[in-house]
């Protein structure tokens, strides 16, 4: 089967905001364009990439198990043969063909494809994915870093219920605009492991499902389920590395700002020589993140206790900033 993307067929055009970048979406599917337009606001300015999606409306193939490979300047994500995404990082172009069924699957795009796309294309469009949750208070951002399982997501929800705006729970996308460092969330849902139910009664009416990495988890809209105020972006001021211990108590230990650099450089993907410009662009953003004030937050006790301590911490830092 040979499929050539017919560009004349991609007659619907949308300019969408995507983690600080402009996504020039071209597609033959109004359903897909309108659905993405509903979660990604329109945007005119900023670094851009093209995203061409040809939808085979008559195809009913569901998204298969994800498979990722990359070489040179290209990466490919396939979800079975009917749903293939080709990322050309050199030319800032994504080409895709998907089944009609997948084009209509809002969950697929929000939970999987949009985060994958920004993760793949980030370096080429000046966006740095950071494995950290992000909360904001009056636009000032708190980045909460930590290994998987450290409790970033549950703490994000707890903080969103104690006065913070919710930006992201797991991956935050950093870029610079007009000299300012910005942290962006995507429309991805918050992912909570099944034991989060003990902290949040509202999960009782939600169902656990299999997430993309095979874990069983709740994947829910933080705004709809928890009433969180959603902020699409903020200006990050502080980085906190989570560390839990048995017992009760907490402390904030100042870290060298370089801790953020070490953390970032060990978590970002290596890029090949063909993408030298992207590597340099990414290095400049890492430099900016590495300038943020940085602490290790050690705590033992309840989630609400940790959230309270973090709130006090941020309020104190902000008062110092105003003084």
């Amino acid at each position, binding site marked *: 089967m040979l499929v050539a993307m017919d560009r004349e067929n991609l007659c619907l055009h949308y300019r969408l905001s995507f983690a600080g970048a402009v996504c020039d979406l071209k597609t033959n599917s109004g359903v897909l364009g309108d659905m993405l337009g509903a979660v990604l606001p329109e945007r005119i300015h900023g670094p851009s990439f093209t995203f061409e999606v040809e939808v085979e409306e008559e195809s009913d193939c569901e998204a298969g198990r994800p498979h990722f490979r*990359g*070489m040179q300047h*290209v990466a490919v994500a396939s979800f079975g043969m009917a749903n293939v995404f*080709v990322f050309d990082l050199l030319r800032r172009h994504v080409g895709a063909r998907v089944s009609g069924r997948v084009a209509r699957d809002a969950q697929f795009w929000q939970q999987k494809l949009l985060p994958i796309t920004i993760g793949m294309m980030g370096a080429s469009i000046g966006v740095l994915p950071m494995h950290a949750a992000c909360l904001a208070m009056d636009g000032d951002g708190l980045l909460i870093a930590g290994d998987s399982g450290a409790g970033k997501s549950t703490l994000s929800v707890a903080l969103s219920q104690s006065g913070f705006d919710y930006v992201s729970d797991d991956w935050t996308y950093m870029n610079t605009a007009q000299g300012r460092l910005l942290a962006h969330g995507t429309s991805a849902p918050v992912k909570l492991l099944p034991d989060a139910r003990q902290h949040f009664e509202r999960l009782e009416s939600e169902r656990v499902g299999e997430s993309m990495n095979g874990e069983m988890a709740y994947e829910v809209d933080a705004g709809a389920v928890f009433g969180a105020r959603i902020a699409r972006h903020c200006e990050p001021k502080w980085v906190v590395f989570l560390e839990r211990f048995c017992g009760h108590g907490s402390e904030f230990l100042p870290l060298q700002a370089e801790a953020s650099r*070490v953390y970032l450089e060990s978590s970002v*993907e290596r890029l090949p020589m063909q993408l030298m410009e992207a590597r340099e662009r990414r290095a400049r953003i890492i430099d900016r993140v590495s300038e943020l004030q940085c602490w290790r937050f050690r705590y033992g006790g309840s989630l609400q206790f940790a959230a309270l301590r973090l709130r006090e911490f941020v309020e104190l830092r902000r008062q110092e900033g105003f003084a």
Partner: protein
Amino acid sequence: MSERMPPPPDLLRRFTPTPYVFELRMDERCIRIEADDLEVALAVRDACRTRSANDEPVLHWRLIRDSGVPRYGEELAMFATGELKTLLHKSGTLLIADRKRREVFGFIGAGLEMQQLTGDLLPLLMHSAHDELQ
């Protein structure tokens, strides 16, 4: 945060070493073939030597043997977008041709025979698609 951070990940297998390298001089051009598997490198080298004189040569090949990949349900899918042509084969093979840069790279499914690679898949990627897409 861990005290000792692991090295940067290579989730896409971009940096798999390709120790088998051939460089061919043809028509005053240098063709470089890299693979992590000698059988693949030899097969592509031989295919390059016997290519048609009318063909625009691929100047850089980089191919990796890939095990543990999902076998696709369909026989074959080809897909062209921008400057790239992508071929997926049921064996778990993924091949990409960048026409402008004259590069072919990708991953060869563990069970794919070399005859099928050089006799069927690569010609399909390089020629049939080219004809139909122009």
